């Protein structure tokens, strides 16, 4: 139950620190939107190069919960599917592998937006 919590905390915290430094050191060029896009893209590229996998093994949710983990999942899915379906897999694999996250984001995002109103 409590396995991997400390590694997840450290790896996840360290990944967030990179995002914070990106924002603080390039102020005001990097908005939260830029951070999210760079982390997804960066995670996908690191995943393709085989550099993100060790981080997932080391940090568990600390590496998969940040958006870079979403990017890693996209890249991994695309590469795995190429092995099975060839070039078609390049198009299907990424979205297939991250379908749960994408669908959950759309569904829960819509549900909460309709249910709640902004404060103030």
């Amino acid at each position, binding site marked *: 139950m409590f396995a991997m919590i400390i590694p997840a905390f450290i790896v996840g915290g360290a990944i967030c620190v990179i995002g*914070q430094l990106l924002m603080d050191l390039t102020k005001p060029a990097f908005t939260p939107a830029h951070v999210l896009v760079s982390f997804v893209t960066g995670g996908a590229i690191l995943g393709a190069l085989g550099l993100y996998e060790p981080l997932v093994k080391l940090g568990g949710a600390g590496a998969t919960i*940040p*958006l870079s983990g979403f990017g890693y999942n996209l890249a991994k899915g*695309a590469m795995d599917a190429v092995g099975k379906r060839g070039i078609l897999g390049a198009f299907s694999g990424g979205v297939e592998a991250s379908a749960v996250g994408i669908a959950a984001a759309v569904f829960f995002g819509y549900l909460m937006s309709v249910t709640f109103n902004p404060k103030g």
Partner: protein
Amino acid sequence: MAKQRLRQPTVSVTPEQYKSLAQQYTPKPTIIKNVVRAFVVGGLICAIGQVITNLFAAVGLARVEASAAATAMMIFLGALLTGLGVYDEIGKFGGAGSIVPVTGFANSIVAPAMEFKREGYILGVGSKLFTIAGPVLVYGIATSIVIGIVYSFLH
């Protein structure tokens, strides 16, 4: 308080020198403070994600499945806390620590959609859901396709 006298200045710097000194010293502490906060908040969110992953694994899900289920659950929590107005408070404190995890992705979906509800359910909620999620999906999916194509040529 009327008889209080001004004390002698204890540091002898001109206002110009003071300005440059102040400039030299102010940015650093905020960056360090922001980094520490981002580390703690981001770390805590990921630690919660790990607990949820472990719970799903304990119920019998495989490692990959448990991780996907935990991601969905974190997205649910991020969206819910944004709706309740709690996530904004976490964001004010945690900075990137609250943006980089998927809960921050969920926040970036719910916050603009909620805000633009008065513009209707199609062009308000429906389209503003993707204000930030749109670019994230465009660049994420496009990158994965390019990676897949390159990979297929290398193998």
